[in-house]
């Protein structure tokens, strides 16, 4: 079953905002790339967090600007993965 969009978004926002004061004001539509907030550490952590929590699998082919520009875009990516393939047990 696809995770609820609102719940997924809230979880991701909390994950990102908890990185420190610079991230506290991040909203679902904050451009993480243009603002310079998304570095390789955060991106790796985000992917591992999503894989651990939702049982999806993301590879380097998914690391595109469109998929990680905003929290909202990441939510779309996760939901697409759910639709494309059933998740493995987390």
């Amino acid at each position, binding site marked *: 079953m696809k995770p609820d969009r609102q719940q997924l978004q809230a979880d991701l926002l909390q994950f990102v905002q908890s990185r420190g004061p610079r991230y506290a004001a991040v909203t679902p539509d904050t451009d993480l790339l243009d603002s*310079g*907030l998304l*570095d*390789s550490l955060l991106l*790796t952590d985000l992917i591992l967090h999503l894989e651990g929590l939702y049982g999806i699998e*993301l590879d*380097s*082919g998914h690391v595109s*600007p469109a998929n*990680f520009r905003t929290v909202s875009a990441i939510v779309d990516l996760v939901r697409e993965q759910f639709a494309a393939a059933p998740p493995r047990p987390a």
Partner: protein
Amino acid sequence: MKWPLHDRPIPGRRIPLYNRFYLHAPRASHVDPVMVWGTEIDADALTSFLRERNRGGRVLLTTAHALIRATALALAQFPEMNVRVVGRRVYGFRGVNIRMGFYHRGNREIDLLVVREADAKSLEQIGQEVWQRLLQAGRGTGPRDRDLARLRRVPDLWLRQLLRIYGFLDRHFHLPSVGRLDELRGGGAMVNDLSFAGAPPMRSYKPTRFPDQADSLNLTLGPIESKVVARGDQFASSGVMPLFLRADHRLVDAYQAGRFLAAVRDLLNHPERLDGPAATDAPDRAGKPDS
């Protein structure tokens, strides 16, 4: 098994005299061949370029990928920089292979990766390769991660002996690389991107040298800082990033190091050139031995 170096060393007659002084100096002279040169790059140009490429590209590109590509193109332009010392001899690397330090999320420590033939790869190919390794490391699923886990279990006493033997062989003999752990020896230049979010301004930086002697060069990029710069007869606020080169006077002199650093800086200041082929140059002393 891979042979990262050319079969024969560069003849002594092609090595500048002052480099030979450093190369053949006795230990008792406490010679210090390490040179560090710091400069700055135009961060606005690089970030604008990356922002534009990240508008519609397939791979998310970062400053680290640009640094790898710029270093590789500059090494292709100045092959006399793509060399290392073995014993008291200088050997050229067969390929332009770049090491990069990264944070291994799975082990919560620094690890290294190697991008092979980086001068022949596009920014996107480099980006994809780096992301693949970062994710693999985060999951701890790569073959190298299993090797690192085994190495981690080696007691200090044995590790010291292993490093002693490995270091002796690496320093004195022209050897192939035989496994995943020593594949790093194939990379003659190491890059660090320390421009991560929240990094403090960098005034100086002396990159370390890995226990093996392969990484003759190190390029480290620091975080973006706003500075007032002169543009013509106007002053303007501009983003700059510090760039540090560590080089070895047994292999290159300050003139060569400066030319190489200028080439890397030029590529990062004009990042559209990262998409082009390596510039050609007429080096005084190529990394290849005499034919």
